[in-house]
């Protein structure tokens, strides 16, 4: 049984050019611009064909702009294809966070009804599932409170819990594992597994390669709107890794006075595994080395070199710094490499954006000599992480010497 079929599907977007400030003052020019059109066609998908059999979990990976979300939008009927045909066999639902559709003045209960019916549930179905939804979100005590009084976490969890209670034949997942704390995430993963076991077909789009590997039977790697590789998760993920490492690794930013050569420049940031092989994929707890290559124009005293790990949502999760240990770092003109050694990389399974900076110790945090965005790295499941990071630790069993049994009353007496 084929649940989903893409038959030579293409999707074109029109990218409009903004008029420059001077021309947009002129009404006639603006009208002409609007009517004649000043756009480029951008093909988000080009002639994509595939089939998904019933019960398969298909992962879709690729860089931003490769066409991942476009596939989801087409499947979910949010936008129509420009060419080709899509066949869907079954009731389709997306496990997405819909809290942005909440009305702040309405209570949690009212919002559950509103968003549940937006997602296609009828009122009877929602009434039946209401307790379970509220329980899943952990907001039982506040269900009759207007959601504007909710914390942002409660807000998101409730929005997500509604979607998690859909009972579809085909489930679309888009970066779902980004909502809530670890406990809530594990509830979500449990729910996904529950649906999988029930034979639900799953389409999972994510940057989280660890999650993709865990959930999916087959993975597509998209590139420039086409299926670049397809196959077993491990193979496709390693192809993706290969693709990433062979791309120009960063874009420069932070140098505001264009033209002036900074005193020192970061020329590359690269990660190596324990076998000294260059990679962008590490398992939690694995040894990792980061090398920051520099070109120094003039001697600089007492600098700090730092590598930052940002989550997909822009939160700083960790950093490597020459500030923490070791001597004062002075740089002499020429090329050099700073090597950071992490015996156990503690980050949870997710993808991280890498940024690197070089600055003087006494300067403020935002005054960099050079600041670069490097290619991201992906952390896959290794040592188990319950929480946000892995704490390196060992353990042993220590037998206690036999103790005299103490009379509990004696303790009370002394307390007197």
């Amino acid at each position: 049984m084929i649940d989903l079929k893409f038959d030579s599907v293409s999707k074109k977007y029109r990218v409009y050019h903004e008029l420059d400030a001077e021309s947009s003052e002129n009404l006639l020019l603006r009208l002409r611009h609007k009517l004649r059109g000043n756009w480029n066609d951008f093909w988000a998908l080009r002639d994509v064909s595939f089939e998904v059999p019933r019960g398969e979990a298909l992962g879709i990976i690729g860089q931003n702009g490769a066409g991942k979300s476009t596939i989801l939008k087409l499947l979910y009927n949010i936008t129509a294809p420009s060419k080709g045909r899509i066949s869907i066999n079954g009731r389709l639902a997306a496990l997405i966070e819909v809290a942005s559709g909440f009305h702040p003045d309405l209570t949690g209960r009212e919002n559950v009804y509103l968003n549940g019916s937006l997602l296609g549930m009828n009122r009877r179905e929602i009434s039946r599932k209401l307790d379970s939804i509220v329980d899943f979100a952990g907001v039982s005590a506040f269900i009759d409170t207007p959601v504007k009084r909710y914390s942002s976490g409660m807000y998101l969890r409730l929005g997500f819990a509604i979607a998690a209670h859909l009972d579809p034949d085909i489930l679309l997942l888009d970066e779902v594992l980004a909502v809530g704390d670890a406990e809530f995430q594990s509830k979500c993963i449990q729910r996904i597994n529950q649906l999988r076991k029930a034979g639900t077909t799953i389409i999972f789009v994510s940057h989280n390669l660890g999650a993709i590997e865990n959930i999916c039977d087959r993975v597509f790697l998209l590139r420039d709107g086409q299926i670049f590789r397809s196959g077993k998760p491990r193979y496709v993920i390693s192809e993706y890794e290969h693709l990433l490492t062979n791309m120009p690794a960063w874009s420069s930013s932070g140098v505001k006075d264009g033209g002036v050569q900074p005193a020192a420049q970061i020329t590359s940031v690269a990660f190596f595994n324990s076998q000294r092989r260059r990679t962008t994929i590490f398992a939690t707890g694995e040894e990792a080395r980061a090398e920051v290559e520099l070109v120094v124009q003039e001697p600089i005293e007492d600098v700090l070199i730092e590598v930052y790990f940002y989550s997909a949502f822009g939160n700083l999760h960790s950093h490597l710094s020459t500030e923490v240990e070791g001597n004062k770092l002075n740089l002499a003109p020429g090329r050099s490499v700073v090597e950071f050694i992490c015996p156990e990389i503690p980050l949870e399974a997710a993808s991280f954006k890498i940024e690197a900076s070089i600055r003087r110790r006494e300067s403020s945090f935002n005054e960099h000599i050079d600041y670069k965005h490097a290619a991201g790295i992906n952390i896959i499941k290794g040592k188990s992480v319950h929480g946000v990071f892995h704490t390196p630790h060992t353990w042993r069993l220590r037998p206690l010497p036999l103790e005299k049994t103490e009379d509990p009353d004696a303790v009370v007496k002394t307390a007197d």
Partner: protein
Amino acid sequence: MSASSINHEGSKRERGARPVSEIRPPSLLGINLFTNLTKLAQYRDLIWTLSIHRIKVRYKQSVLGVLWAVLQPISMMLIFTFIFSFIARMPSEGLPYAIFAYTALLPWNYFSNGVSNATNSLVSHAQFVTKVYFPREILPISYIVAALFDFSVACILLGGFMVYYHVPLTINVLYAIPIIVVVSCFALAISFLLSATQVRFRDVGVAVPLLLQVWLFATPVVYPLSAVPERWRTFYLLNPMVGIIENFRQVMLTGSAPESRSLLFSAAISVALLVGSYLYFKLSEATMADYV
């Protein structure tokens, strides 16, 4: 952890056969009116919930609450009575000017408030349109339903006015029902047209209040149809709101049957426009999320 797993007792049972759907590039010939209406019927709970939501949100945290539904036509009535009865001496076909104006203001406000809110409905719900699939026409529809609710509330006061001014109630009042159906169709038609267009051209949102203002004076709300010079009448009657408003006032206040020619004309225009604008709406729905 067992507490967090979700049990759906009997949910599989209610699902029935798996629906099969096919998505193709948008084309006018590809729009199946029947399929779309069936789908809309499946989403009737959403229409209901959203409409209730509109009403709730509007009156929540307001002191006067649902009284606002009455205050708007009343204040307009007072203003018009002052200007057109005390200052301009507008004829009102032998009726007290206040009730003459108020009666016409009810269907007019229904139309005007419904259309102006519905026009913005897609743009103001961009977060729904770009994230979740549901038949998009539900958004404008919900605003028309909410406006219908306000209309019903304001009608209660009309009853009070009729008692106060000793206007006799006749069986012909029932003609108001088909007239409301016609004005609803017309309001929906205009809303589909304007809301779908506004997604691409935001000028529509700015133009609508102006349009409605001009339209109000091109419709016999503050003056009777008989005040329009005979030679302009044919041209004037092309406005479907003329047949609607004039007939509504006639059946409510004079107790006579509606003037069938103008009402049928309004009905024909409204239905034809509704079908046309619905097709146009569905055609632009396919790529709405790319523009909104």
